[in-house]
């Protein structure tokens, strides 16, 4: 009687190792918490832009779209996620879609942007007062992400409002252009 041979089975352990390593890699590079970095903002190119440092937690992202609107996706006061100064705009609360676009009023938009930034500064001030080390000083850095095709006047207006709200530290974001 011939000896019984065990059925041949492929060794899947190295394959599993490799796959898990790849899963780990993709999990590490995928950032789910990117709600402040708006993908609809196409940044301008700049060769001298430096790699992004770790700016800590005291940051305020300010996204400005092509039309000069301030994008505020998590603010409940603006159901469609932007401060656009449209008079007579109607937004469907359920779907968050604009039913009626309205007409642009720049002054109204500037006032709304000012109110938003002043409110953001006040919130940062409260947080700064509650901080254990160096309480009272607002160290928040404003990170401006403006669309490449936005008009200068709209970007300038946002910068000016940041300053008048009280923010002192500022940084621009651009797409790093290869030399």
């Amino acid at each position, binding site marked *: 009687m011939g000896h019984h041979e065990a059925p041949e089975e492929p060794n*899947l*352990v190295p*394959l*599993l190792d490799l*796959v*898990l390593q*790849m*899963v780990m890699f*993709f*999990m590490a*590079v*995928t950032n789910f918490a990117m709600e402040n*970095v708006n*993908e609809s903002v196409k*940044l*301008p*190119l*700049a*060769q*001298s*832009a*430096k*790699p*992004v*440092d770790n700016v800590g937690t005291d940051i305020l992202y300010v996204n400005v779209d092509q039309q000069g609107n301030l994008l505020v996706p998590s603010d409940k006061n603006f159901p469609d996620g932007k401060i656009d100064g449209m008079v007579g705009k109607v937004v469907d609360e359920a779907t968050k879609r604009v039913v009626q676009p309205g007409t642009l009023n720049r002054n109204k938009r500037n006032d709304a942007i000012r109110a938003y930034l002043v409110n953001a500064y006040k919130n940062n001030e409260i947080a700064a007062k509650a901080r254990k080390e160096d309480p009272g000083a607002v160290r928040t850095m404003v*990170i401006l992400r*403006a*669309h*490449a*095709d*936005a*008009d*200068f*006047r709209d*970007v*300038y207006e946002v*910068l*000016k409002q*940041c*300053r*008048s709200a009280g*923010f*002192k530290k*500022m*940084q*621009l*974001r*651009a*797409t*790093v252009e290869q030399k």
Partner: protein
Amino acid sequence: MSKSSKITAPDIKVYLPIVPMLDMSFQLLFFFIITFNPGQREGQMAMNLPATGEAKAKKQEDVNLDKPSDTELEVPSDFVVSVKYYEQNVTVAVRDSEKVYDIGKITDMDKLTRDEQRKEVDKILAKLTDKLKEKLEEKKKERKEGDKLSDNVKIEANSKMKYSMLVGVMDACIKAGYSQVGFAPPPDLGS
């Protein structure tokens, strides 16, 4: 002879279900590959905020008469890079307290394709970098020993100028060696 009381455990084969685990891992891998979006590399640029007036003093005794008044809103700078857009033409110039230096002009900007615009803009920005470098070198030579080199520059542009052009100019200023770059209010915007 007494029998050994040691009871040996039955020979149990532990079976590790690798195949379902591998299935799940592949599912996860597929999900991450599909959602993976490296995008373009984002970089940072430091800048000066546009100035506002000094904060108002709380008491009359606190008023510092040496400080500039609220009407002087602009940060002083040695050079102004002026970028103008009118009738589809873009002009770039540098001015200091004495002179205006023309850097270049792009005519019929709107008729050019995006690639052509980019080429023309790059040419002008290269010239601007050279000019600003030259001016900075002059300042370094003129500087007396012990004096701090003020390397600030201000960018002045029309209100309708595209932000990408402004960042391009800012890029040229930084490449030329200026560390303090700020924006002046658009002259056609009014107060």
